[in-house]
């Protein structure tokens, strides 16, 4: 029996000129539609979903709003700091706040997070001091926090690798008989890496309590999602034997509900879930990138109407969950955060040169010891020369 993919209707037309067929794979369907879990519309209207419900207190709702606002403020500050030369690089999460805060707030303290390099909002939810995230972008370290303090692993730059670490960690959780869960973040581009497929295979075979959270922000640097897949990414999970779900990644309530459900499934011993958060990278890939080379302004503009923060604000206002005083206080808190981050970054000390030789090995190494000694002697020679 043939299993036709759900994309079968969109398959390329038959063509005797096969080159052209090869040039134009089917387009990935865009946004919304029945397959997208949504609980809060772009207009700020609360809707119900048959499979996912959520009931939050006013305080919780304000909390989510605050998380998103502060995360965005922090992100903007970091972008500014890069422009001012204080950071070498910054990877902005602008536009992805709902995906990150929604999923991040679904986690329990004992859950473990494996981020990429863009999960500043998740880090925020985990209680990682945002200034700690900046060390690697300033070039003073490769990751400035202790992963085990907040159960938040270091940022991983080699695309896709961390999905296997998450799977292994989850296998360990299961072995321990614990009911924690693990979440692995990755991007639409990352979905093409063999490591991610292997993570799907291992997690399914060992029934590991892991949630694969794919932020499909439509772009992998300059490449649109069509260069990675011709069907919606959430469908990838199915062929590995676990469920996939697409959620409106700009809807913080839906992201929270869907992630919570996936985490609970993991806790119950039912294994992995793939969550595809359908969102948009509003800014450049990083501060080194120039998106005008490859994408149209209109596309970005169309996503502005779906802004994750605006829609929640509308909802909070309409429901009377937050008033003007709340928003004003939050603005102030934002500025305080921005200032704190700015100052913290500017006062980060230049690392000592001898730090180069630290931590290459846990048990030490005769070779590194020798090189360290030579380097120290070499440096000392300048001191002697009075340089």
């Amino acid at each position, binding site marked *: 029996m043939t299993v036709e993919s759900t994309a079968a209707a969109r398959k390329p037309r038959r063509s005797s000129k096969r080159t052209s067929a090869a040039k134009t794979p089917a387009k990935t369907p865009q946004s919304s539609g029945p397959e997208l879990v949504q609980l809060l519309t772009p207009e700020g209207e609360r809707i119900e979903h048959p499979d996912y419900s959520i009931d939050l207190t006013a305080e919780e709702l304000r909390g989510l709003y605050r998380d998103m606002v502060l995360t965005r403020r922090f992100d903007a500050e970091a972008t500014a700091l890069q422009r001012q030369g204080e950071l070498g690089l910054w990877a902005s999460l602008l536009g992805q706040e709902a995906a990150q805060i929604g999923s991040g707030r679904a986690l329990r303290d004992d859950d473990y997070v494996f981020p990429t390099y863009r999960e500043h909002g998740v880090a925020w939810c985990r209680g990682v001091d945002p200034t700690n995230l900046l060390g690697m972008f300033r070039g003073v370290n490769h990751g400035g926090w202790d992963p085990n303090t907040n159960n938040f692993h270091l940022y991983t730059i080699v695309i896709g690798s961390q999905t296997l670490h998450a799977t292994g960690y989850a296998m360990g959780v299961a072995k321990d008989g614990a009911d924690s869960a693990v979440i692995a973040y990755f991007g639409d581009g990352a979905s*093409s*890496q063999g*490591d991610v497929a292997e993570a799907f295979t291992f997690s399914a075979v060992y029934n590991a309590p892991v949630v694969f959270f794919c932020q499909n922000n439509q772009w992998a640097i*300059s490449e649109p999602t069509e260069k990675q897949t011709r069907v919606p990414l959430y469908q990838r999970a199915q062929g590995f034997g676990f469920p996939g779900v697409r959620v409106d990644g700009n809807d913080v309530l839906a992201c929270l509900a869907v992630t919570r459900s996936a985490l609970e499934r993991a806790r119950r011993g039912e294994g992995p879930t793939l969550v595809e958060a359908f969102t948009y990278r509003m800014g450049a890939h990083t501060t*080194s990138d120039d998106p005008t080379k*490859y994408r149209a302004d209109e596309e970005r503009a169309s996503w502005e109407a779906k802004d994750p923060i605006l829609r929640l604000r509308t909802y909070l206002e309409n429901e009377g969950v937050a008033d003007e005083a709340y928003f004003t206080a939050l603005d102030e808190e934002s500025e305080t955060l921005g200032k704190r981050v700015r100052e913290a970054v500017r006062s980060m000390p230049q690392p000592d040169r001898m730090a*180069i030789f630290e931590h290459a090995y846990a048990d030490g190494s005769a070779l590194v010891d020798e090189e360290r000694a030579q380097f120290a002697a070499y440096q000392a020679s300048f001191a002697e020369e009075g340089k």
Partner: protein
Amino acid sequence: MAMEKMSIAKALNESLRKALDTDPKTLIMGEDVGKLGGVFRITDGLQKDFGEDRVIDTPLAESGIVGTAIGLALRGYRPIVEIQFDGFVFPAYDQIVTQLAKMHARSLGKIKLPVVVRIPYGGGIGAVEHHSESPEALFAHVAGLKVVSPSNASDAYWMMQQAVQSDDPVIFFEPKRRYWDKGEVDTESIPGGLHRASVARTGTDLTLVAYGPMVKVCLEAAAAAQEEGKSIEVVDLRSMSPIDFDAIQASVEKTRRLVVVHEAPVFYGSGAEIAARITERCFYHLEAPVLRVGGYHVPYPPARLEDEYLPGLDRVLDAVDRSLAY
């Protein structure tokens, strides 16, 4: 004669353009090589002019890129693959080492795989982790691969031409922090073989061997040493596999002293191979042991420490002095 001053980046771009122009079987493949022109803009404008069928944005999967390039080569194409940064070649390492490198031999010569793998490499650009590495030894040790690196615009232009024409797979390391250095390029006459070293500066007291980004450092060190009355010869290796030992030997038989400089860690690096072989060839000529200047046996440090880590003028001169002190 067509002399033109251009950057290494521009020379590579021109050379790739010429390759696409000359041979319809050449292809460019990689992440972001299309509209963006690659993160370093080396393929800038090429997709616009040659189309998406010739300049191909690939899925984000390096093993897939190299693996499908092998398949395209089997079909008669000549793919030029871009790996975005040195630190991201490793997912493709299996395809490169077990497949690309071996297929000519295992087919008893029936299959040729003219694939070029371009890798911007090395540090000095203030980047985050995995963006500043020098993994050339990990390829040079593998039989079946050729491994080269230009240090200047003319070599960038011509070595790329030669790499594309090579019927063997070539790992083409591009010195990313020199991309914007300019030099004269004569686009009409080939300066020399792909695997020949060249003497970048003549001298009589000591030989410095370097390649890629370190050639400039060595030339500066030689100039500085000149002021102290030391005459240093600088050999630009150009090819890390095979190595032009004859050229190094000729230089060392004259100068009797050799220092090898590279960014890659010294331990098991190319300097080891050069030191071992040249010592064997020039045992009675050498007045001093071959000294090596390079990276330490630690992961590449964060950007704010890279100037300490990278071999610079002073460390080269320090080694020169130590050699001359023998």
